[in-house]
């Protein structure tokens, strides 16, 4: 190697992933999938529903392992669950029997911090996501957007270097979603983490990311990659009205549309 450069945060090299269906048949979710996420980069992955987008994230966490190919995190192959990784789920993954602050404290406590330490840092994170007044509430007492903020605090408190997000805001209403985008970009710019953000919402992907990966209809492989050169810091609420944003949207949608149609035709068949 000529130049010493830090290894990329995430590399998926020619990865395939097969599943066994309940009837014992082998299904391919990912085929020859290659993706690189540089340190501090915000990558969005878009593709038709059910194409295998979430599988890519599970491979990075170590919750699933590839059938072929290699997954590397910070230059080293993935072995088990990496403590440098944070994950925000699509569904509500908060612990409903714990109060908001106890939910946020979970990570540090699991990782062996003392209770007062965990509590102090949970307070700090709750303040950062604007939920200081709701420490003692239970998740069911909060709105969907507030629960997502708790989930963000729960993830960010561990100081992840890599943040994986699996359609995290898809269940929220449009207004709340824009607020959450702002929140996420703010937290991300402070934390300097590398992000992989899986979504089926193209505008969300363009508004947030540095790079957008378009996947094919399942079995998923990379169809094309777009660099998004919109200046940062971005104001998500306004950016969608800028001409360059609209141009990106139009170009990438033309590309994505084919795959969506293929996947739709297959589902209808």
């Amino acid at each position, binding site marked *: 190697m000529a130049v010493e450069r830090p290894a990329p945060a995430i590399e998926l090299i020619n990865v395939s992933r097969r599943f066994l269906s309940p009837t014992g048949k082998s299904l391919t979710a990912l085929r020859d999938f290659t993706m690189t996420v540089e340190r501090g980069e915000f990558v969005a992955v878009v593709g038709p529903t059910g194409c295998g987008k979430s599988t890519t994230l599970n491979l990075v966490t170590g*919750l699933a392992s590839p059938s072929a190919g290699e997954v590397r995190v910070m230059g080293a192959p993935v072995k088990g669950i990496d403590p440098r990784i944070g*994950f925000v*789920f*699509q569904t509500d993954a908060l612990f409903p029997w714990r109060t908001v602050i106890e939910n946020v404290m979970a990570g540090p406590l699991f990782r062996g911090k003392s209770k007062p330490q965990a509590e102090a840092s949970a307070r700090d994170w709750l303040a950062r996501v604007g939920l200081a007044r709701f420490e003692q509430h239970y998740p069911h007492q909060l709105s969907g957007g507030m629960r997502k903020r708790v989930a963000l605090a729960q993830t960010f408190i561990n100081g992840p270097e890599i943040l994986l997000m699996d359609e995290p805001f898809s269940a929220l209403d449009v207004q709340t979603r824009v607020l959450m985008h702002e929140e996420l970009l703010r937290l991300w710019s402070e934390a300097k983490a590398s992000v992989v953000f899986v979504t089926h919402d193209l505008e969300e992907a363009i508004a947030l990311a540095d790079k957008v990966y378009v996947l094919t209809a399942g079995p998923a492989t990379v169809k094309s990659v777009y660099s998004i050169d919109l200046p940062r810091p971005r104001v998500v609420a306004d950016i969608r009205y800028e001409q360059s944003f609209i141009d990106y949207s139009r170009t990438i949608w033309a590309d994505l549309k084919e795959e969506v149609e293929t996947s739709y035709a297959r589902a209808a068949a």
Partner: protein
Amino acid sequence: MTDATVNITTASFRPGTSDAEIEAAAARAAAHRRRTVTFWRLGILIAFLSLWEIAGRMAWIDPFFYAMPSTIAGRLYEWITEGTSEGPLWYHLYVTMEESVLGFVTGSIAGIVIGVALGRNRMAADIFSVYIKVINSIPRVVLAPIFIMILGLGLASKVALAFVMVFFVVFHNAFQGVREADRAMIANARILGASDWQLTRSVIVPSAMSWIFASLHVSFGFAIIGAIVGEFVGSRFGIGLLINVAKGSFDAAGMYAAIVIVMVVALGAEYLMTLVESRLAKWRPQPLHETQ
């Protein structure tokens, strides 16, 4: 656009539709509903008991076999004030309760521990599930004579019977509860850094808790059944013995009186269980219209 704004704060209500009036009307309706429910509950009980009493007195049914509410109440009063032919009522009740509670506590602890352990370990579950099915297919009461033969007429045989009655119910629910634990929640805990033991203790068990509690509700009743059946088959004390003695002397009122006692105790236990559960489950959403 701005001239179309309506100033809502000055909007006037039609008579009878202000917040206070609507709330008062809702409160009245709720109170009325509660009174109706109570009225019918009491009414049906009184009607049933009266019909029984009248049927007995008019000799529509033979009071020798069916007794009458009045003779049952008389027998209960006699047992409470003078004691039974086998000694003081309270001692018998105490013995039965001791057996039931011990069987209930040990049975549910064993059921929870083994249920969670097998629920977490798929291999062990696959191996042992067949044995559990086999043992579970035995009607528990046939074990009573065996336990009495092995463990004697005293406390141990009844506790053992109550234990097996409780164990399988709690085991099944704990096992199922563990299996139903939300996958995203488990993945979340593992990525947040939970070890296997932390995952079991702080995610799996709490999320199986509502399943476990559902089984604890019914299983105290099963513990009482175990204790009483054990007492039928062979014992020196207990409510089961009282029923047995009453049967031997064709004392129908005595049998019904013993049943009433067991009923009261079981209802009391159920009430306590509900109290404990609602304390532990304070994180669960309350229905909005609860007007207590």
